[in-house]
């Protein structure tokens, strides 16, 4: 990773085509969830050393948001999936 990302829609593409948003783990709370839940969602991060899930955006490609599962110590990528195929989302 970080040199090349295998986009599930476009194939192997260079890092320059993507922008990164950050941790993909936090799920947006329901509107009436507690203040603590909202604070945690917007501000707190596990930030572990090792395996993480991160949101990458194929900005200069298919414009899909991807979940890149990877190791932030070795920079090895485990999987890249379309974010919409995984997330349950918040309120509908």
């Amino acid at each position: 990773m970080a040199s090349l990302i295998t986009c599930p829609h476009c194939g192997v593409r260079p890092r320059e085509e993507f922008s990164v948003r950050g941790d993909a783990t936090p799920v947006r709370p329901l509107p009436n969830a507690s203040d603590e839940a909202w604070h945690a969602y917007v501000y707190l991060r596990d930030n572990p050393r090792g395996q993480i899930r991160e949101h990458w955006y194929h900005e200069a490609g298919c414009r899909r948001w991807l979940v890149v599962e990877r190791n932030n110590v070795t920079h090895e990528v485990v999987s890249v999936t379309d974010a919409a195929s995984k997330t349950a989302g918040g309120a509908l």
Partner: protein
Amino acid sequence: MSLMRYSALQIVKQAFAANRGWKPVWREPEPKPHYDVVIVGGGGHGLSTAYYLAKEFGITNVAVLEKGYFGSGNAGRNTTIIRSNYLLEGNEPFYEFSLKLWEGLEQDFNYNAMVSQRGVIDLYHSDGQRDAYARRGNAMKMHGVEAELLDRDAVKALLPYLNYNHARFPILGGLLQRRGGTARHDAVVWGYARGADSRGVDLIQNCEVTGVRRDETGQVTGVETTRGFIGCDRLALATAGNSSHVGRMAGLELPLESHVLQAFVSEAIKPAIDHVITYGASGHFYISQSDKGGLVFGADIDGYSSYAQRGNLAMVEHAMEEGVSLIPGLSRLRVLRSWGGVMDMSMDGSPIIDKTHIPNLYLNCGWCYGGFKATPASGLCFAHLIAKDEPHYVARAYRLDRFQRGLAIDEGGKGPQPNLQ
């Protein structure tokens, strides 16, 4: 623990003794079972905290635990810039306090950290950027800090080698802080270490903290380490880059993400760049020249979560594009080495120096890529907090709960996305 006084005379004296009389700069003590204060992290901030705890607050039963060697983290991986050109009320007084400490540092700890106030120039490239720098410069002046808004001709006179005729983004002027500059990063670490050691602080390298022990009431009683349990009355964390990791041992979840920032040095050349120059148009770039002759420079963080102390080629190329675009004369010079540091990127780009909800646990983290210049003030303010249990006046905004309360100190206005800070 007598401190060997460094001076020109001492150098002459030792030279005639074939330099065999120099004493170790610090001891290598075995850890004691208990300390009043244990500081985790033997970087600039941890060591300066220990130094000021001993010197300013008389607390000397202190240990600094370092998993590797002193200065092995970001203290030795930065671009050595010092400055106090901040905009916000939460920041400017703190960084100015730090700059003032830099100005007296060498005499204070009798070690030449090569503080060089050669001037920091932030270039602007549009009217909007000029206005933003004017706002910042006036904020500095409000706090009594000198600042100068330079027009294009004034910049040209100072920096004749910039690209004025073929720039993609025209150089319209710059904000100059003459008191800004650089310092020798390793010397800062060694100077603080030497000063702390001579006042009785135990500096312990090769000692990694593996756990935080808390008693049934929840308060911290000590740390598990690779060299055994070490008890303490107060535990202070200064492990930027790894704050989340160490914080988690105590049960803290922090508003941080770890990111890698690359830095670079060129082959040594004769003096060519006499200032610190920062450039921010479509990309970001900053450069200065070390006393040894290497051009020291950097650009943005790589942008993804990382604990690896290395970055990738895309950002290397980006940094060089910005560099050659700004200074065409760099083209035929060669870059010698690149490295990466792991940054605590916080949710508003500003640091945290605060107590936590866990009794006896004190926190110093979130320095993003601006921690080096803060080293003296960070240490003094953290020491103040640990010693007096209340924040130092200039660091009072760096609270951990500021996000909950809607009091972010968002110098860049980027919002809660760490990789944009």
